[in-house]
């Protein structure tokens, strides 16, 4: 890119921006790390080595992985439909997909509580089958699914739009079955988008707090996810535990998102290069 000589104004703008980012984002992150390690590394590690935290992490991962798998299948399917199919009500459907992004997590949990809780008309029915949704894992799973709904779809729509259709047509002309076309031509192009979408969904699911708090109730050992564990530790003034668990959870989410981002970028670069080679 062409660079002009920077004047004083440019340096002022750069300084303003960098200071803002440091105060807004970097400062709080450093504070969390120093809070977790205020008594040293050993107490921090020991504080979250308890079985209770491990148990909450297992619940978080169980719910999150299930949400990611469902979104991988259905989210990709919906994205595919939005790009490749034309049907009545498509723009309405398109608008509805973003709703979970804007609805408050508390409201999400509360909606499910109304739907499946003790006062709901569904409750006697579920009770007869001895199946609990509210204050149990199924409800927390549904809440997380609602909250994570748009991520996979919004990631995959542009990827599917950019698919190279010439290759598909060429393969079809040469007699490849739709199955072969999907696995040999479409899937390789979708792969990095799928991984990125899954990662974003996973990070969002792991971090979900309000919705699972309302629908799950945060009962220790039963419906306590990792975020709910942190919340309870904070309320019970077990600060080192809360801070260390928060640091671990935050670091894990950041790590997976960055890894997936790097993967996506290297894939895009490869695609650009191969596109250039093709035009030559």
């Amino acid at each position, binding site marked *: 890119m062409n660079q002009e000589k920077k*004047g004083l*104004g440019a340096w002022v703008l*750069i300084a303003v*921006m*960098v200071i*803002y*980012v440091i105060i*807004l*984002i*970097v*400062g*709080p*992150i450093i*504070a*969390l790390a*120093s*809070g977790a390690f205020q008594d040293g590394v050993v107490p921090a590690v020991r504080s979250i080595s308890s079985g209770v935290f491990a148990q909450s992490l297992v619940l978080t991962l169980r719910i999150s992985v299930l949400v990611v798998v469902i979104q991988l299948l*259905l989210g990709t399917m*919906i994205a*595919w*439909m939005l790009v490749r*199919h034309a*049907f009545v009500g498509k723009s309405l459907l398109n*608008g509805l997909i*973003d*709703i979970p*992004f*804007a*609805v*408050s*997590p*508390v*409201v*999400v949990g*509360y*909606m*499910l*509580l*109304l*739907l499946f809780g003790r006062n709901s008309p569904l409750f006697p029915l579920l009770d007869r089958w001895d199946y609990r949704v509210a204050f149990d894992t199924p409800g927390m799973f*549904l809440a997380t699914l*609602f909250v994570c709904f748009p991520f996979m779809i919004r990631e995959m729509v542009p990827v599917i739009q950019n698919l190279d*259709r010439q290759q598909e*047509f060429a393969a079809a002309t040469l007699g490849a079955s739709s199955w072969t076309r999907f696995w040999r031509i479409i899937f390789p192009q979708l792969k990095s988008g799928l991984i990125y979408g899954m990662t*974003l969904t996973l990070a969002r699911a*792991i*971090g*979900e*707090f309000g919705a699972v708090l*309302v629908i799950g109730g945060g009962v220790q050992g039963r419906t306590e996810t990792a*975020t709910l564990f*942190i919340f309870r530790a*904070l309320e019970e003034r077990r600060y080192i535990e809360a801070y260390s668990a*928060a640091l671990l959870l*935050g670091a894990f*989410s*950041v790590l*997976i*998102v*960055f890894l997936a981002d790097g993967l996506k970028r290297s894939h895009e670069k490869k695609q650009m290069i191969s596109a250039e080679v093709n035009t030559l």
Partner: protein
Amino acid sequence: MNLALTRRKEKSQPGDWVLRGTSILFLVLIVIIPLVVIFQDGLREGFDSFWYQINLPIARSSINLTLWTSALMTVINAVMGLITAYVLVRFEFPGKRLVNAIIDLPLAIPTLVTGIMLVILYGPQQALGGFLIEKLNFRIVFAPTGIVLSLLFITFPFVVRTIQPVLEELDRSQERAAATLGASPWTIFRKIVLPALILPTLGGSLLSFSRAVGEFGAVVIVAGNIPLRTQTAAVYVFSQVESENRLGASAVSIVLVLISFVVLFVANAIQKYWGAHR
């Protein structure tokens, strides 16, 4: 791309119908039914009792607090997002890649963790927080300032990441022409760059507003849960669910959902308009 090929009308096959049916059913089950339930529950005793519930002093003040903190955040976010995107696209400086990566961090960090970070940094028992309160009488934690700060943290990437691609694609020949004719950098920015960025800035800002209105995890930690002072609408809904005031919880939930709907609708309309007039 070959338009004739992409426009080719595909015949619907039975498989397509299954695909379509499953997707729509999934959306209806997961998204639509819960939303219908909340409207039905909040209005089950008529509009008057809904109106009464949202006008109770504590409910009202929570809605007001939510609206003004989100609005203030949106304005700051628009200005700082614009500056950040501009600097990242137009200037080279040491550490630029790092800053660019840091901007995405809030997308990955759970909001509960964000709240904890701010409490550690600005809490009254902490060094910096204690100093700000004692020396400057400036309270951040358990005050509206903390709410605005946590919302800024969470939504910072939205505005920056909507403006950045637009700025990258902007045709610079007009700016060069203006510079040749002796226009100052500020005039060039105001007359040429800014008009092109107004709609994306607005779109990103509305997105961050709609996200902020419902925020719970960060706010409940940073602001606490003090009725009439630091209780936002989402936290109010939570406390009403806890105290089993169903009508109150449903009524304020409806208000929250309606605000998000309106804002999302406007944001989408802007995006469409912008896409058509590019």
